[in-house]
């Protein structure tokens, strides 16, 4: 992949053996709230909260930093709620 900027879109572990918090839906909702300018709750819909791809880019980066799991772009937007995103992170941790 010499000159291709393709990125890996798979779910995958962050690798680092540091202690990472357990993904809790409300904590993820709080993180969303920082970028959406709206109060997010566990089962709120990302798009109904005014979510955009520019916010999504920042949220996926933050989730990767905090939980050590980089979510695929598709999985993140298709999950659409903090609760389901928490499940995805848990699955990513489990190496699925």
């Amino acid at each position, binding site marked *: 992949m010499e*000159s*291709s*900027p*393709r*990125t890996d*879109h798979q779910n995958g572990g962050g690798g680092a053996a540091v202690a990472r918090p357990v993904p809790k839906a409300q904590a993820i909702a709080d993180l969303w709230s920082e970028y959406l300018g709206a109060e997010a709750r566990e089962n709120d819909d*990302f*798009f109904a909260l*005014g*979510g*955009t*791809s*520019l*916010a*999504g*880019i920042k949220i*996926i980066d933050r989730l990767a930093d905090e939980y050590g799991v980089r979510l695929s*772009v*598709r999985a993140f*937007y*298709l999950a*659409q709620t903090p609760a389901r995103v928490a499940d995805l992170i848990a699955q990513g941790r489990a190496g699925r």
Partner: protein
Amino acid sequence: MTPGPVGDLDVDTVDLFDLDLYEHGDPHTIWDVLRAKAPLHHQVLPDGRQFWSVTRYEDVCRVLGDHREFTSERGTVPTHLGTDDPAGGKLLTSTDPPRHTRVRRAIGAKLTARAVAPWAETIRRTVVDFLGPALDGEVFDLADRALLLPAMVTGPLLGIPERDWQELVELTAMVTAPADPHFRHGSEAATLAIAHHELITYVTEWVRRRRSVGGDDGSLLDHLMHLRVDDAGLTDEEIALDGYSILLGANVTTPHTVSGTVEALIERPEQFTRALADPSLIPNLVEEGLRWTSAACNFMRYAVDDVQIGGGTVPARGAVVAWIGSANRDELQFPDPHVFDIDRVGAKRQVAFGFGPHFCVGAPLARMTLRIFFEEMLRRFGSIESAGAAQHLRSYFIAGMTHLPVVARKRPAS
């Protein structure tokens, strides 16, 4: 597509965002009535969002052309109606003059007719390769194949390696027709967000890689990284956004102009024969094809203050959709507008590339590519026929086709 009788259409119940109208029907039947009876049309969607529409040539040019009355900074794409563009003032298409003027000039320097002329022979070879399989005697799905044509043509110019073309074409198609079953992933909103995110990430990664490896291949993306506006470069975010916008603009319109113009020629063998006999008509064939297909069906602006237009008032902050597809069939500008005529006088007044400050920055490249396409097609094809039903894109933003099966026969050596 020639409109049928419209009867007594009730303009108050017209739904201009009815996707079935674009996939299965004919929006010209509606636009014709709106131009005549309701040149400023107001619509409230079931979810409460509302927008005004202008359909006359003169009004469309005014909305697209005057940023003091109609701003681009809150977004210009109707699929985002009601949500202010988070990239406003950064993404070039969502930026008003004077900033827009300076950035556009810097980007456009690489895309003038003179600047793109040296690409002609490379493009010609690409077009010849593209047309080759159409002459093997089998059914050739022109609309489906053409989706990849702009990537083949502009990939080297942009600096995009061939292995990435297919995926980028799928992503850009998702942006333009998020409701089309060919491209949809989950909801429309999810489809749009996935495509935006992956395209912006693609450019960001491209830039990161280029910086770490160094060098400059003279590509358009390199140009974005290095251009200077007011003694400063673009920010990384602006580079990513404008790179995204260029990928989008390159990919999503030209294929539909190609397919739609070829379809018009299939339906009118006498026009095909004329073009075959006189290649000097090709530049006007291209203009008439642009007018006829109007692939970018509309763009949106927001009224800055209360504004009088089309015999009515758009309130301050109201969204206005300028229907380019309708303007290009305005009988006041184009006599017998629903006649496809490669000899049409004034075809070049079409506004398929938009109008005013945001006139398509890639227009010279698109015009050259279309001219070369039809030169090579007419040099090789003696005839072309339909081989099945065309399928139209499920989109009110981009007018185009997903399938156009054709059978072409070789032009006998003369």
